[in-house]
């Protein structure tokens, strides 16, 4: 169970491959299903072209909050493992922002846990997006960045 909040860019598929390789005994033969969500930066939002983005966060609280959500997911569904990665700082269009992965013996647990973690993260984890458009900088509001 790993939570990473980092300024460094990451490749989601390489991160998943390397996480599975790091502890093959946790996965091989036991995992019936892995559910993954990758959220990336779009070059448009609320009808405007977005050139760049800065993600502010509350250092200390973000990791603590994501670990709490992950523990809640583990309590609700039988999971083999979870991985959560979230960027902060400057981002370019196309950059992966967040990765949530849940491994389980059965697919329903993997799917439900992955969805639970990303939904809680989106509505409660202390991150704030500021977009750079032709009209200047603007803070993203939950209505526009949500589903």
């Amino acid at each position, binding site marked *: 169970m790993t939570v990473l909040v980092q300024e460094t860019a990451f490749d989601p598929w390489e991160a998943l491959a390397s996480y599975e390789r790091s502890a093959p005994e946790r996965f091989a033969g036991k995992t019936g299903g892995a559910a993954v969500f990758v959220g990336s930066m779009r070059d448009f939002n609320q009808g405007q072209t977005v050139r760049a983005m800065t993600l502010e*966060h509350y250092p200390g609280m*973000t990791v603590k909050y994501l670990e709490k959500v992950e523990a809640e997911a583990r309590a609700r569904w039988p999971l083999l493992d979870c991985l959560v990665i979230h960027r902060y700082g400057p981002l370019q269009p196309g950059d992966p922002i967040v990765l949530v992965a849940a491994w389980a013996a059965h697919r329903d647990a993997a799917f439900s846990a992955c969805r639970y973690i990303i939904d809680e993260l*989106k509505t409660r*984890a202390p*991150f704030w997006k500021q977009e750079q458009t032709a009209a200047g900088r603007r803070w993203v*509001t*939950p209505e526009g960045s949500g589903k």
Partner: protein
Amino acid sequence: MPTAMPRVTIRYFASLRERLGRAEEVLDLEGIRTVAEVWARATGEPLPANTLVAVNLEYADFSQPLRDGDEVAFFPPVTGG
């Protein structure tokens, strides 16, 4: 010798930080006790709708009483992910 005045550290994030023009300050708890009172004393402003608050890195209510050394953070609705 008088005991030191209990104090809290206040942090502001994102649009709230920009609007108030500061990221962090320290406030004496003299005559005030709750999160709501800290906001009022520190900013002198009405609370913006949907403002969230965390005490010591955990979500809290505005009625929560504070103690010496607590960290109180005010921030707008989150937009991560």
